[in-house]
Structures are given as C-alpha cells and as structure tokens.
C-alpha cells in the first residue's frame, strides 16, 4: 500500500458566475490535481475552459478557493489559440520569459536552448513570431511553459485541429518533458478525444454543466459502467423493462448495448466496459 501522492492544486467549493445576474458556469467544484497527466473532459459548454482559467488565476472565483497545499500556487496556462509577439523571435520570447523568472543568466541560457531543442523549434528559433505556423505557435507556447518554474501546467485543447501524427507528436513532447526532473509534475489537459484520455492520461476529471461528475483514475471511469455493457446479436425491441443509454451496430460483432439496469436479457453476452461506456453512464445515469 503506497501513500497518496501530494496534490499540487486543490480547489474547495470553487464557483464562478460570469455576470451578477447569470448562472454559475462552474459550481461547487472540489478536487485535487495530482502529479501525472490528468484529462479534463465533458460536453461542449460544461465549463472546462472557465475552470482552467480559474485555476490559472485569470478569473477571480465568485466563491471558494484554489490553493497549492505545498506552497505558492504557480500554474502555467496555455490557451487553445496561443498568440505570439509578431516582432519577437522564439528565442527572444523565451529569453524574456526566462528573465522574468528571476533566474541566473546561465540557468536561463540552459533552459532556453533546452526548450528550443525539445520543442523542435531550433529551425525557426530566429524567425519573427508572425512567420510561425499554428503548430509552431503551439509548440512555442508549450516551450514558454517549460522555461518558467511552474509546478503545474494547464493546457486547453492542445490537439484540436491537429492531424494524427501531429497529435502523437504533442503527446511525445509532453511525455519527454515530464520525464525531465526540472519540469512541472502535474498536467491538466482538456480534450474531446476519449482515445487520447485512454492512451496517454492517468487520471480524468469529467465536468458537466459546471459540476464534477467523476474524478479518479482512467480505469475507474470505465469501471463505472461495469455490469451494464453487453453484446446483443439482434436489435432490441421496445420493452418496458429495458432501458438503454446506447445501442449501436458494430460490424461483425453484433450490437453494443449500454443498459441503464444491470439486468441482461437472456440473449445478451457480457462485454468489457470501454471509456466511452463509462463516460456516457456517468453523464446520463447520474444526472437523472
């Protein structure tokens, strides 16, 4: 039995209302961000971006608080569409970021050249920012995060609009960086791709309409749907005792069933729950 690792960000009953008369877009959110890669997922409009900005202290919470139990809260935030200074080269921009951090000249030099190498920006290091393409801009924003001395990193939809190879490259970059002892240890990343959560993340937070529906290990989110996932070899008739969250035809294997109740019809075979099943069950099953 190992002891629970120390959290790097802790929120207590965090709530945010953008206007005095409007509704809470984040309400009563309490969770801890642990070392490793945590995915923040949820439907469109769940409040994921707002939550990231609250954690980055760009928004002031209406209620509740964000703290780092181990000391000062230093979370670096990478927005979905990072801007660049059009007149600065990546090298100049990273130098500027490093010198704001109160580090020595030699430290800054080492960190900037390491960041440029790791983010594969050396070939464009001395070009003006306005000439960078979208993926280079994103890599530069990520490089800036690693030049700073933040303890945790918040990244908003880093892989949206990337092609499959570029997407893997992002996760490679993150993985390589996180192995470096000087790097931040906790990463919170929003995504709409459950396959990325399954493939690269250790923990997952599911947000729906401003509230946390699930917070835990990725494998445990799958487990939420255990006992309710089946194969059926035929379509399922409307029956009062059968209520389904999902029924979809899967070529060759029959129909995938996610049942509201854990009682199978006689013709159903059990099937292992996937992350999709867990996601759907937590959203549909618990909100009733």
């Amino acid at each position, binding site marked *: 039995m190992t002891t629970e690792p120390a959290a790097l960000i802790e929120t207590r009953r965090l709530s945010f209302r953008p206007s005095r008369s409007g509704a809470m877009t984040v309400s009563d959110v309490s969770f801890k961000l642990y070392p*490793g890669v945590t995915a923040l*997922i*949820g*439907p*469109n*409009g*769940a409040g994921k971006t707002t939550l990231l900005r609250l954690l980055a202290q760009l928004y002031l919470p209406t209620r509740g608080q964000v703290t780092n139990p181990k000391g000062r809260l230093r979370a670096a935030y990478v927005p979905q569409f990072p801007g660049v200074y059009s007149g600065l080269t990546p090298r100049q921009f990273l130098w500027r970021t490093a010198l704001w951090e109160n580090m020595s000249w030699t430290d800054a030099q080492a960190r900037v050249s390491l960041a440029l190498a*790791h983010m594969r920006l050396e070939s464009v290091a001395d070009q003006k920012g306005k000439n960078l393409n979208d993926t280079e801009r994103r890599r530069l924003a990520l490089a800036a995060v690693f030049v700073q001395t933040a303890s945790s990193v918040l990244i908003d939809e880093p892989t*949206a*609009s*990337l*092609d*499959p*190879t*570029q997407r*893997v490259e992002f*996760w*490679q970059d*993150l*993985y*390589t960086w*996180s*192995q*470096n002892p000087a790097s931040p240890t906790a990463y919170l990343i929003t995504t*709409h*791709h*459950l*396959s990325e959560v*399954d*493939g*690269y*993340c*250790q923990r997952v937070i599911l947000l729906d309409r401003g509230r946390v529906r699930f917070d835990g290990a*990725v494998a445990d989110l799958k487990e939420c749907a255990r006992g309710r996932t089946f194969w059926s070899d035929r379509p399922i008739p409307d029956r009062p005792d059968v209520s389904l969250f999902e029924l*979809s035809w899967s*070529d060759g294997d029959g129909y995938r069933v996610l049942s509201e109740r854990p009682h199978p019809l006689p013709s159903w075979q059990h099937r292992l729950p996937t992350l*999709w099943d867990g*996601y*759907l069950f937590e*959203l549909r099953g618990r909100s009733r």
Partner: protein
Amino acid sequence: MLEWSQCTIGYRENVPILDQFSLTCDDSAIIVGPSGVGKSTLLATMMGLVPYVKGHLRVGQREVNGLPQISRQYLSYLPAANLLPLDVTVEEYLTELARIDGLSWSSARRQALAMAARLHLAEVLTRRIRWLSGGMKRRTLLAAAVLKPAEWLMVDQATAGLDPEEQRTVLDLLQAETQSRGVLMVTQELDELAQFQKRVLILMDGNIIFDGSSEDLRDTARGHVFQRALDSTPPPFDFWQPLPNHTAIKVYQHSIPKGCQAIAPEVEDGYFWQIMTTKGRDHDD
C-alpha cells in the same frame, strides 16, 4: 460513382497540390492523411471550388470539370469551416434550404424539424445562428447538408469541435446515410475509420498510399508494433508513442527489436505504420 481521372489540381497556376491524380469511388469511403496533403482539396475540386483543375472529374458518367452548376446538383457539401448566415434562426435556415430543394412548405418544415431533432438542435430552433456555440453551428451546417437530397454527401471533418456524444451522434447519422447514398468523408480522427466501417483511403505525398478496410489497415501493422521499457529520453526511435503508465512506450519497427515485446495492433497503429513506411521509402530513393 465519383471519379478523379489524371487530375492536376492547384490553387495557383503551375503550383499543383495533386499531380496526375486518379481515384474512383463507387461507394462510401473515408479519407485520412497528414494535414496539407490535399484531402479537403479533393472534395472542393468536385464542388468546383478549386481554380486550376486539369483532367476529368466525373459524377456518375457525367463530366463535371468546369461545370460546377452540374456537379452541385448531384453533390451535397459540408465544408470544414462553419460558413453560415448569422441573422436567421436555425429553423428558418433549414426550412428555406429545403424549400430551395423543391419541397412544399409543410414537408420542408417537417423534414427540417426532424433533422434538427436528430442532431439535438430542437431546443435552439428559434435562436439566431449568430448566438449558437461552435458545436451547434457545426451541427446546423451538417443538418443542411444532409437534408439536401443529393446522390453524394461530401463531408469535410464533420466532427471538428464536437464533444464525444455529439461526435457519436454525427457519425451514426452519416453511417445511416451510407445505406441510401454515397458518403465521402475527410477526417483527422482515426477512431472514425473503424466506426464508419467503409473503405479507408490514406492520402499522402500526392498518392493514395493505402486503400482497404479498417481491418486490413490494422493488419498491415501486425508484427511491427512493440512495447518497450523507457530507458532514455527522448527515445532513439523514428516513431513512438507514450503509454499511459509512463514506464513503457510503444515503438514501430520492421523487425522485433531487442528487449521488446510484440503487441497486437489497433487501427491507428496501421495508420502510423503506413505513414512511417511511406516516409521511409522516400529516403531510400
């Protein structure tokens, strides 16, 4: 049938994106590949949206190169960007388009409402498009494209920006459409290759480098995917993927490397293997 025959295609004269390119689609298919290889351009070419096209473009047996007014009768197109009128409501937009397609008022309205409900837009029917979220705009545009009774549906990144449930809704709808007409889809989501269950085409370096089912694609990587302990960073491999436990990585090699354990490939491994080996071929030349 859709056919690109010996086509040279570009947005500027003498700067071809695709050169002497040929492809025939008899039935629904899904196109994937690195960004910038011309996937979207292929669809746009058929719609008459690309200025420099040499060669033959055919819809059915009809030659349509230079005749966008003909091709657009037979094709319905969902572009990658959400190009929508902003000051009309969702209901007005969908109903008007169905009217233009020749339906009576009552059936245009009925069909528009049914399609909106199917794509979970029923609650925002009376909202002006300007005030919709990005995901709702995407689904509104898709509803309009699917409502048009065209022979072929040309879909460019249908699920971009959609949350997991809406991705599933849209994919289910497009898959159902393949029962009654051809759907040609461009995507960047490898999950969709297996879910769509149709012919998979990988476009790279101006050629179709893979043509087959998603199972065939997966099987091309069999014996080439390995799990290996992480002992140095960055790992000394051309292409690798992190694994969630952060103690091992997935690597792709022609033959089994030392200290590695072979693992059963997934469809996405097939894709990466195809991309990797195609890149390798260039270096050998």
